[in-house]
């Protein structure tokens, strides 16, 4: 309850700054917070990445095991994405079964990675119709200051790029690197009043009217989207966000490769 009152109080301050063309932390509207990515952070995982996006801190780990394929995709591995918004990361998170918020976060990150064909799932098939690799992408929020969608997406992609398929451990031949085919990057924008800003902080998310996450690929095409919030977006606003996402996404992708 008290948190909602704080959001109302901060709203005026945030909106006032936006009308002067700036944000609480001094960023431009289309500027992301400083990003650092640390790969292979967890040795017990097949691949992992700790991503710090401003004051948001996310750890993504990948575990793999041998299992059965889905009957309709006998030649493909299986991917499962799960986001844990644990109460360590914020007073607004509660323990217990996943709530709507964490389900949305995990599904949006999953969609970007899956629809963007980050992993060549065919190469995760061991024996068609019988045995495939089951891949668990676990996204663990450690410190929460907004925009888990992008921090999680960047962490998931970085973790996948560093992952090794543990074939030897499972007695399925030699270990091999995760077969990566594309690098989908999501960029999230929020709308506050008439303003569009990317990579929102928690305060900005809280006062936002609407939110749009856009995942784009190397060639500029769009592979996943999700609108959130009860506010609305005009068509030209959607295109503006896509343009920002493409531009900033390319920068993030370059950073992950460098």
């Amino acid at each position, binding site marked *: 309850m008290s948190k909602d009152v704080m959001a109302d109080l901060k709203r005026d301050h945030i909106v006032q700054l936006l009308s002067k063309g700036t944000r609480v932390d001094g960023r431009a509207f289309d500027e992301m917070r400083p990003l650092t990515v640390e790969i292979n952070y967890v040795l017990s995982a097949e691949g992992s990445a700790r991503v710090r996006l401003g004051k948001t801190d996310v750890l993504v780990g990948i575990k793999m095991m041998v299992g059965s394929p889905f009957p309709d995709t006998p030649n493909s591995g299986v991917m499962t994405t799960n986001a*844990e918004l*644990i109460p360590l990361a914020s007073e607004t998170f509660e*323990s217990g079964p996943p709530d709507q918020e964490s389900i949305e976060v995990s599904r949006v990150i999953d969609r970007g990675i899956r629809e963007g064909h980050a992993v060549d799932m065919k190469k995760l098939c061991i024996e068609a119709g019988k045995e495939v690799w089951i891949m668990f992408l676990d996204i663990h929020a450690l*410190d929460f200051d907004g925009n888990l969608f992008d921090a999680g997406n960047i962490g998931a992609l970085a973790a996948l790029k560093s992952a090794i398929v543990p074939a030897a451990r499972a007695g399925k031949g030699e270990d091999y690197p995760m077969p990566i085919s594309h690098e989908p990057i999501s960029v999230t924008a929020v709308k506050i009043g008439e303003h569009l800003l990317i990579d929102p902080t928690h305060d900005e998310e809280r006062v936002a009217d609407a939110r749009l996450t856009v995942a784009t690929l190397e060639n500029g095409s769009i592979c996943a989207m999700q609108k959130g919030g009860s506010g609305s977006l005009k068509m030209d606003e959607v295109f503006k966000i896509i343009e920002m996402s493409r531009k900033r996404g390319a920068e993030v992708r370059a950073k992950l490769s460098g």
Partner: protein
Amino acid sequence: MGGTPIPNDIKLLDENGKRVDGRRPDEMRPIKIEAGVLNKADGSAYVEWGLNKVLAAVYGPRECHPRHLQNTTRALVQCHYNMAAFSVDDRKRPGPDRRSHEISKITSEALTHVVFTEYFPRTSIDVYIEVLQANAGTRCAGLTAASVALADAGVPMRDLVASCAAGKAADTVMVDLGKEEDNFGQADVPVGYVPRTEEIVLLQMDGELTHDEYTLSLKMAIEGCKKVYEEQRNALKRRYQVRSVDAVEEPKGVA
């Protein structure tokens, strides 16, 4: 414990009396503690202990939920121990299981003893322990991190709780068991200790030990706790030394 046969390629103690990772029986794994590592939490700490990586965060004292748990005379110290799905070899299903409920309970009890709970009636002090990478001894690492996080949050305490285990593997009593020693060893005795008052606030044991072996294990574990305690104090000193330097330098920037 002791139920699993030792694979042939693992030798828990070699001819020179060295353990799997080259330690002597009375030697601990390297330990690194850092206080104040998270932004959102009121207090936090990170502990790297051998291959264990553990984060602890403290929120509170704050309104106690659910309300019926409120105590009108004191604060409730509520610990929540949780393992990340990728922290172990075979993925752990997310969410609390019976083991983590038990660890949460005994950790809460150990910390309740040192916190001045009577200063904060009706509130809850929530302690979240997240195991990011597990390699035996996570409950000790978690309790160690939690008490540094409580101090970092400014919660008044009688002393820090330090924690360390000792046990038996390859018929030898040794301190701070590693993963192989825990899996294929004969006994494990985790201890939580208040060095200033010499009180034991957490104590468990599984496996089989003679009376003498048990006495030695307990003594070794307490010696380990004292070393951990030094690291905890150093972490807090480092954290707040930096702050005092900041405070001195700040006015220059303003002028």
